[in-house]
C-alpha cells in the first residue's frame, strides 16, 4: 500500500513539475504576474510530493517490504538500521529518487529565498529547474520505477555488498549527488539568464552561493570516496583515475573554474558568456556523472546492450539537455555585452588563466576517460589510459595553475603592479626556492619533479599567508590595528585564504605520498620480522576473530624503530582480513599509524601455509597532509558560504550590502 502511495506521489510530483515548467516560462515571456506566480506553489508542492515518495521508499526499506523489487534486490532484514537507510539511495532507482527529491528541494529553496530576484528571472529559473526534473521523473516512471512490485515475494532480500557497509560509503554518494544537484540550480540560473538576455553582477551574486554550496558538497563527496578507498582497499591508494572517480572530478574542476569566473562577473561585469558556458558545462558533467557512469557505458559499450531502454532514454535526455543548452547559448550569448576593461597584468587576467588551466584539465580528464571507448569504436584499437598518463599530464598542467594561484590574489583589479607583487613576495619566493633545493639535496639521485613540486607547494602556502598578512597590514600598522583588521576581514576573503592555503597543504601531501611512498612485503612466520623505512615490524601472533557477519584473521604486529633496542616498541598494529559469511568477499582492514611525517599502513594477507602469513606494509610520507588540506579547503568554502552578503537567502543582493558598506 505504501509503495503504491509512493508511486502515486511520484506521479503527482511529475504533474506539478509540468505546471512549474510551463506556466512561469510563458508568464515571464508575456509579463503575466499571475502565471509567473504559479511557479512558487508548484515548486513547494513538487518538493512535498517527491519528499513523500522518498519517505515511502524509505519506509519500505525500514520494514523490509520485499514485495518491492528494489528492496528485495538491495536490502536484507538483518541489516543494521544505518545501512537500511543508506540502501535507499545505494542503488539505481533509489538514487534517482534521491536526486529528484533534492532537485525539487533546491527548486523550492529558489522559490522561497528568491524573493529578492526579479520576478521574471525567478520564474524562468524555476521553470528550467522543473524541465530538468521532468526528465528525471519520466526516466524513473518509464524505465526505473523504484516502486515496482514483485509478483513472487521472496522471503529474504539479497542484502547489501559488505564492502559498502561502511560509514564512509554511506555518506559518499549523497554528498556527490548534492553537489551534482546543486549545480542544477546554477545551470537553471544560466539558462534563465540566456533567455532573459541579461547577465549582470547581481546575477553573479545570486549564483555564487549555489555554486559554492554545490562545490563544497562535491569536494566532501569526492574526498569521502577517496578516504574510503584508502582505508578499505588495502593498497594505500586514494586516487586511481578510475572512470568512476573521473566522472566526479570533472564537474569539480569545472565548478572550481566557475566559482572563480563568477567573481569576475560580479566584481567587474565581464567574462559573462564564458561564465554561462561554464555553468552549462558543469551541469552537463553532473548529468554525465549521474547517468553514464551508472549505466556502465564508460567501462564498456556492452553495458548499453543489457539495458537498451534505459540507455536510449539517457542518450536522448542528455542530448536534449546538453545539446539544447549549447544551442541556446550559441543563439543568445552575443546578447551578453562585456563590461569592464582591464590590463594584461590584473586580477582579471589571473582568474582567466586559472580558468584556462582548470578547463583544459577537465577536458584532459574527459578525453582520457573516453579515449579507450572512442579508440575502440573508431580505430578498432584497444587502448588504455591510466594513472601514468594522467599523473604526467596533470603534474605539468598544475604548475602554471599553482603559479597563478601564488600571484593572482596579490594582483589588483583592472591593473596590477607585478614588480610590486614580486617585491612583496621576495622573502616567500626565497624560502620556497630553499625548500625546493633542500628537497633536491636530500633526495639527490631521485626524480627531480617532486623537489620542484615541494618548492611550488611551499611557495603557494606562504604566499596565501603573506596575502592575508598584507591585507591586514601586519607589521606595517600597529599590531592591535592589524588584529582588528583581521577580525573585520569579510568571510568570503577568509574563504579564499583558507581555500588556497588548504590546497597548498593538500598539494604537499600529494607530492609526499606520490613521490616517496615505500612498500615492503614478506611472508613471515611468528617471531620473524621485516623492515620498512625506519621501522621494524615483528609478527607476534595471528588470531582468529569472529565478527557479527564475518570471520577474520587478525595479526598482532609489534612496530619498533629499525635500529632501536629490542623492547623499543612504538605501537602494536592489528591488521585484519575479513571473510564475509553472506558473500565470497574478503576485505582488508589495514592498520594505519598516522603521524604528520607519514602513515605506516600495515596489511595482513591470508595464510601461506605452515603458519606463515603474507604481510604488506607501506610508508606513505605526508599522507595526512592531504586529508588535512581538504578539510581546510572545505572549511574555507563553508566560511565563505556564511558570508552575510552572499547568503542564499540574501534578500537584496548587492543593494543591501552597499548600504552596509556605507553605513557609518
Amino acid at each position, binding site marked *: 500500500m505504501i509503495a503504491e502511495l509512493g508511486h502515486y506521489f511520484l506521479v503527482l510530483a511529475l504533474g506539478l513539475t509540468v505546471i512549474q515548467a510551463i506556466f512561469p516560462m510563458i508568464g515571464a515571456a508575456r509579463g503575466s504576474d499571475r502565471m509567473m506566480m504559479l511557479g512558487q506553489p508548484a515548486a513547494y508542492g513538487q518538493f512535498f510530493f517527491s519528499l513523500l515518495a522518498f519517505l515511502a521508499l524509505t519506509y519500505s526499506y525500514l520494514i523490509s517490504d520485499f514485495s518491492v523489487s528494489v528492496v528485495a534486490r538491495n536490502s536484507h532484514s538483518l541489516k543494521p538500521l544505518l545501512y537500511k537507510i543508506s540502501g535507499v539511495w545505494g542503488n539505481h532507482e533509489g538514487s534517482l529518487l534521491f536526486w529528484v527529491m533534492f532537485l525539487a528541494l533546491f527548486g523550492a529553496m529558489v522559490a522561497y529565498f528568491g524573493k529578492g530576484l526579479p520576478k521574471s528571472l525567478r520564474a524562468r529559473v524555476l521553470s528550467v529547474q522543473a524541465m530538468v526534473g521532468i526528465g528525471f521523473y519520466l526516466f524513473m516512471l518509464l524505465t526505473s520505477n523504484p516502486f515496482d512490485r514483485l509478483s513472487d515475494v521472496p522471503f529474504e532480500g539479497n542484502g547489501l*555488498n559488505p*564492502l559498502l557497509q561502511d560509514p564512509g560509503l554511506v555518506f559518499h*554518494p549523497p554528498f556527490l549527488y548534492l553537489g551534482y544537484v546543486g549545480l542544477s540550480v546554477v545551470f537553471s540560473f544560466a539558462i534563465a539568464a540566456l533567455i532573459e538576455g541579461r547577465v549582470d553582477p547581481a546575477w553573479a551574486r545570486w549564483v555564487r552561493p549555489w555554486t559554492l554550496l554545490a562545490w563544497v558538497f562535491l569536494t566532501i563527496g569526492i574526498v569521502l570516496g577517496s578516504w574510503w578507498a584508502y582505508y578499505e*582497499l588495502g593498497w594505500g591508494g586514494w586516487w586511481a583515475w578510475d572512470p568512476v572517480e573521473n566522472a566526479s572530478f570533472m564537474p569539480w574542476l569545472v565548478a572550481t573554474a566557475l566559482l572563480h569566473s563568477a567573481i569576475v562577473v560580479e566584481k567587474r561585469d565581464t567574462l559573462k558568456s564564458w561564465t554561462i558556458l561554464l555553468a552549462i558545462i558543469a551541469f552537463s558533467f553532473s548529468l554525465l556523472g549521474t547517468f553514464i557512469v551508472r549505466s556502465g557505458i564508460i567501462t564498456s559499450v556492452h553495458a548499453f546492450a543489457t539495458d537498451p531502454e534505459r540507455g536510449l532514454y539517457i542518450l536522448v535526455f542528455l542530448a536534449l539537455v546538453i545539446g539544447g543548452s549549447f544551442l541556446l547559448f550559441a543563439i543568445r550569448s552575443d546578447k551578453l555585452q562585456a563590461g569592464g576593461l582591464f590590463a594584461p597584468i590584473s586580477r582579471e587576467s589571473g582568474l582567466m588563466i586559472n580558468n*584556462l588551466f582548470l578547463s583544459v584539465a577537465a577536458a584532459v580528464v574527459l578525453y582520457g576517460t573516453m579515449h579507450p571507448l572512442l*579508440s575502440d569504436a573508431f580505430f578498432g584499437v584497444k587502448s588504455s589510459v591510466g*594513472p*601514468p598518463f594522467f599523473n604526467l599530464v596533470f603534474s605539468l598542467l598544475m604548475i602554471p595553475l599553482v603559479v597563478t594561484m601564488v600571484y593572482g590574489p596579490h594582483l589588483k583589479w583592472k591593473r596590477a603592479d607585478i614588480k610590486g607583487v614580486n617585491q612583496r613576495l621576495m622573502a616567500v619566493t626565497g624560502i620556497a626556492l630553499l625548500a625546493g633545493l633542500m628537497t633536491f639535496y636530500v633526495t639527490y639521485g631521485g626524480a627531480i619533479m617532486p623537489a620542484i613540486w615541494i618548492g611550488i607547494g611551499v611557495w603557494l602556502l606562504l604566499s596565501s599567508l603573506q596575502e592575508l598578512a598584507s591585507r591586514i597590514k601586519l607589521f606595517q600598522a600597529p599590531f592591535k590595528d592589524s588584529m582588528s583588521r583581521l577580525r573585520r576581514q569579510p568571510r568570503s576573503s577568509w574563504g579564499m585564504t583558507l581555500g588556497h592555503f588548504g590546497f597548498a597543504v593538500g598539494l604537499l601531501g600529494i607530492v609526499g605520498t606520490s613521490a616517496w611512498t615505500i612498500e615492503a*612485503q614478506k611472508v613471515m612466520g611468528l617471531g620473524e620480522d621485516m623492515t620498512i623505512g625506519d621501522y621494524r615490524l615483528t609478527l607476534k601472533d595471528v588470531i582468529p576473530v569472529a565478527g557479527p557477519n564475518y570471520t577474520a584473521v587478525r595479526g598482532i604486529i609489534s612496530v619498533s624503530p629499525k635500529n632501536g633496542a629490542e623492547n623499543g616498541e612504538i605501537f602494536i598494529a592489528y591488521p585484519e582480513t575479513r571473510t564475509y559469511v553472506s558473500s565470497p568477499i574478503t*576485505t582488508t582492514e589495514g592498520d594505519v599509524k598516522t603521524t604528520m611525517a607519514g602513515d605506516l599502513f600495515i596489511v595482513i594477507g591470508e595464510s601461506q601455509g605452515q603458519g606463515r602469513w603474507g604481510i604488506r606494509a607501506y610508508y606513505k610520507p605526508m599522507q595526512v597532509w592531504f586529508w588535512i588540506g581538504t578539510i581546510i579547503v572545505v572549511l574555507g568554502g563553508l566560511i565563505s558560504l556564511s558570508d552575510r552578503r552572499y547568503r542564499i537567502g540574501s534578500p537584496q543582493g548587492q543593494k543591501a550590502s552597499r548600504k552596509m558598506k556605507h553605513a557609518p
Partner: protein
Amino acid sequence: MKFLLIPVLFMTLVLNAAAIGVDKDRLQDPAQEDRAQHIMKQLRCLVCQNQSIVESDAELAQDLRAIVREQIIAGETDAEIFKFMTARYGDWVLLKPPFNSATAILWLGPIALLLIGGFLIFRTIRQKPEQDVTRPLTAAEEKHLKKIMKDNN
C-alpha cells in the same frame, strides 16, 4: 546499485588480491626491484578493470610480474621490456599510451586547447580602451542622476 557495482566488482578483485598478494620472488637488489615496480605500475592487468599489474593478484598479473623481474635480471632495458609486452599484448597493455595516429588527440589535445584558450585570453586582454562600452543614460536614469545631484547639494 549499478553505479556502485562497477567499482565494487573490481574492488572485490583487488580485495581478494590484497588478501594474498605477496610476491615471494622479489628481486634482491633494491635498485632493480624499484625499477621493476616502476615498470609494473605502467603495465595494465589485462583481465582486471583499470588496474596495473602491481595492484592485482590475478594469475596473469602474477605471471607478468615474474616476466618483468626475469627480464630485468637478464639485463634488458626498460624500453626492451615494454617492447616485449606490447609485441605480445598490443598497446592495450600500456597504461600510458604511446603517441601515434590513434592517440594524437589524447596527447596533442591539451596543447591545442591551451594554445586556443591562450589566444582567446590574449584577444580579450588586448581589447582597446576606445571600444567604448558606456552607453548613454536613459531618460529615467538621467532623472535619477539629477535627483541625486540635487540631494547632494
